[in-house]
């Protein structure tokens, strides 16, 4: 189903609960009654067309949002990516970490199993934090600077021209990884090799959270690879030609 600005998000979410985290990520609070997408976006100051691309992509795996997103301002995509970073680092990863911490085994295995999982997960958490921190301090500010100068038909800032001599978004593109292989390993370990914990309900929750996070991260990386990188590349070339 294609979600348009006249559709009521309440109806869509009732049909597809996977949209719940996306709604929250845009800062929309529940209890929005029968308002339609356009009304809600207006209320929260959200760019409606951008919102529609993101929710449609999330709602239908065959929906391709990239073409349209590449033609919108990069600042929209970047601010959404930043919100996702916050969600991973400050909400989801600590939540899963706490769940792991609450797993319990019989006396003699408890310490070993818990420590090994905790260590693995904290290493992974660090990996994600470093990855996102690098994007937030290096990559995103750089692409926003590109965009600002690109839109400014006057003189390009000399500081940027200086950077363009040595810097290129291609360097980031070449080393940009998915952050997913550790999650894949963790799923395998829990499903196949970990001694069953006493609280299987927690095990179940952890697995579900990992699957959701994995999908979310994949979409996130796709957005970076298919929108941020190609648009930045285009602007780099254009700015170099202009000057």
């Amino acid at each position, binding site marked *: 189903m294609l979600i348009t600005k006249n559709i009521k998000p309440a109806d869509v979410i009732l049909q597809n609960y996977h949209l719940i985290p996306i709604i929250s990520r845009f800062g929309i609070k529940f209890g929005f009654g029968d308002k339609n997408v356009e009304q809600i976006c207006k209320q929260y100051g959200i760019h409606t067309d951008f919102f529609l691309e993101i929710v449609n992509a999330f709602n239908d795996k065959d929906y391709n949002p990239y073409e349209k997103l590449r033609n919108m301002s990069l600042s929209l995509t970047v601010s959404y990516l930043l919100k996702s970073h916050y969600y991973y680092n400050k909400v989801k990863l600590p939540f899963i970490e706490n769940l792991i911490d609450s797993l319990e085994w019989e006396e003699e295995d408890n310490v*070993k*199993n818990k*420590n*090994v*999982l905790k*260590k*693995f997960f904290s*290493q*992974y958490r660090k990996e994600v934090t470093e990855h996102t921190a690098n994007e937030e301090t290096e990559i995103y500010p750089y692409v926003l600077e590109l965009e600002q100068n690109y839109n400014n038909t006057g003189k390009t800032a000399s500081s940027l021209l200086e950077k363009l001599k040595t810097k290129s978004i291609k360097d980031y593109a070449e080393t940009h990884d998915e952050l997913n*292989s*550790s999650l*894949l*390993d*963790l799923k*395998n*370990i829990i499903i*196949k*090799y*970990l*001694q069953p914990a006493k609280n299987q309900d927690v095990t179940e929750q952890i697995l579900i959270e990992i699957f959701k996070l994995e999908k979310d991260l994949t979409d996130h990386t796709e957005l970076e690879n298919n929108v941020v990188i190609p648009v930045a590349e285009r602007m780099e070339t254009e700015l170099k030609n202009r000057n």
Partner: protein
Amino acid sequence: MAAKLSFLIVEKSYIIRSGLMQIISNFYETGVVNELHNVENLLKNISGIKPDVLIINAKLIDAVPELILDIRKKFKDLKLIVFVGTRREADNFSVFDLKISVDEPKSLIVEKIQSLINEIKPKKDDNLSENLSEREKEVVKQIALGKTNKEIGETLFISPHTVITHRKNITKKLGIKTVSGLTVYAILNNLIKIEEAV
């Protein structure tokens, strides 16, 4: 982890393609499913994707009948399924391993494709017992201790190349790719002590 099969669907119509996709994705053995919209560059794509099964619309090869013979010759292990959209009893599809047609019920199509899959599977599953060999366990242990391929080779008196082969097989068997994942496995299975891990 059992080896999954890779499929390539060659079909122009979106509606038919997604129908075929729907059927294919429901098999346990299904791994990657790739799609092509026409036969341009088909040979090149097969070389690149290396599918186990190719599904192609009969209409697409009407204009280039020699193409399928070419594929058969070049890719001996590739299973060929022809999809027939309209009644064409007169045609001879003997070059294909299987024919499915638009008017067949789902149960029949699924059954036919499943038996074709079963023909391929044993070969792909060769030497894939789920358990690690003693040598592989030793390699996992060394990886968990933080050793490089070169160091592992020196310790176990094997070439670094052999170490890489072991690592590939270990990942295939366990479904664990990263060093930290293998370390967890090694500790859980008492191959090393938690204090020894890097």
